[in-house]
């Protein structure tokens, strides 16, 4: 037996079932009946808000808050969301509805990388081959485990083009293609540089994009759904440092 969906339950609680079948089902189904009961309780409770006036505080209150916390904001932020939490968020994401949540999760994750892994692994790299100059490099971290996931570096070729070179552990078993992105520090702007097909990948950075403005290297799992935007399902990330 199909249970009533939320809107059908709300309609019944409001006394206007969307269909006769809904009403009959809720009358006999314990689970749906208790949901309707809870919504009716909400309805009753909502009535308590009648006649209440909310009062906004005067502007000086916010000024006082800002003043009080301004001093401590000079210290580096230590309270970032753990990566494991960002991971949990992604697993519960709703398809097609993820971008905003991802941005914040990503911002938090970047905070962690900057604060920890990135600094610790600064000495890596510097093995640019073929005479290309390494202009930036990043330690990559697995977002689920925070484990070392290889390196990324930007090499400048003789003709001036910049190439993002990624060395990581390639896992073909992921449910989708692995796409490589460069993202800005606000985690708002981003550009795809291509798909990773093995442990080593080289991607020419499109003209107009530079690593100072887009320092975050991100590898995401992209389902073959024809949607060119970021899926929100990042698996690996690092921050390029020059």
């Amino acid at each position, binding site marked *: 037996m199909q249970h009533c969906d*939320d*809107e059908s339950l*709300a*309609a019944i*609680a*409001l006394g*206007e079932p969307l269909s006769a079948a809904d009403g009959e089902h809720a009358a006999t189904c314990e689970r749906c009946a208790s949901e309707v009961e*809870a*919504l009716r309780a*909400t*309805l009753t*409770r*909502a*009535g*308590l*808000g*009648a*006649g*209440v*006036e*909310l*009062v*906004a*505080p*005067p502007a*000086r*209150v*916010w000024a*006082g*808050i800002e003043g*009080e*916390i301004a001093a*401590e904001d000079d210290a580096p*932020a*230590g*309270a*970032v*969301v753990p990566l494991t*939490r*960002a991971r*949990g*968020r992604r697993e519960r994401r*709703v398809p097609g*509805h993820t971008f*905003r*949540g991802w*941005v*914040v*999760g990503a*911002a*938090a994750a970047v*905070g962690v990388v900057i604060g920890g892994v990135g600094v610790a692994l600064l000495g890596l790299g510097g093995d640019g081959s073929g005479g290309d100059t390494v202009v930036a490099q990043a330690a990559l971290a697995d977002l689920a485990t925070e484990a070392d996931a290889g390196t990324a570096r930007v090499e400048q070729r003789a003709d001036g083009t910049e190439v993002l070179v990624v060395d990581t552990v390639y896992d073909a078993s992921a449910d989708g293609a692995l796409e490589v992105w460069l993202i800005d520090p606000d985690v708002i702007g981003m550009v795809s540089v291509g798909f990773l097909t093995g442990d080593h990948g080289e991607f020419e950075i499109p003209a107009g994009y530079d690593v100072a403005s887009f320092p975050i290297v991100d590898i995401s799992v992209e389902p073959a759904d024809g949607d060119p935007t970021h899926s929100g399902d990042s698996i690996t990330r690092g921050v390029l440092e020059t």
Partner: protein
Amino acid sequence: MSVRTAMVAVATERGDASDGLDHAFAAGVDGSLERLYRETSSLVFTLALRALGDRAEAEDVTQQTYVAAWRGRAGYDPERAPARAWVVGIARRTIADALAARGRERRRLEAVRDVPAAVEPDPWAGEAERIVVRSEVESLGPPRSTIVALAFFEGRTHEQIAAELKMPLGTVKSHLRRSLLALRHGLEAADAAL
């Protein structure tokens, strides 16, 4: 708050709206405290004002609440509760502290004067509930907050609301269904944070 696409499931819609803020706040993202303040300060200030009955004290408590929320954000888990509910929890404790301090002061004075201490009823709990409910309704944003106020507070019929707001009857009903679901979601989160 903007009117969102009606086809998005309400729980998700509501959850997502606060989720961005919740994670940003937990991560200490610039501007997240200001956003949280914008969304919740009327609720916090009204709670403080009604409980303490004194504007200056209510302003103090409001300021203390947000400073404490910001300083304590490492202890906030966005997976467990919306930041909105969390900050209200802090406000309630700050208000309780202010009331307790006042009680101590009064008892000290009364001891000096040798007056028996008055037994204080708690009219405050019911009032706080009414304020929280009102704030949840306001946070639905227009047009839902208006429709809900007309329907649930003033007892208007759906037809009257449709006529007054020049809105199709079906739209009014749909807004009410979604509002009811959002209110349940919001009030449960508010309860969980107490």
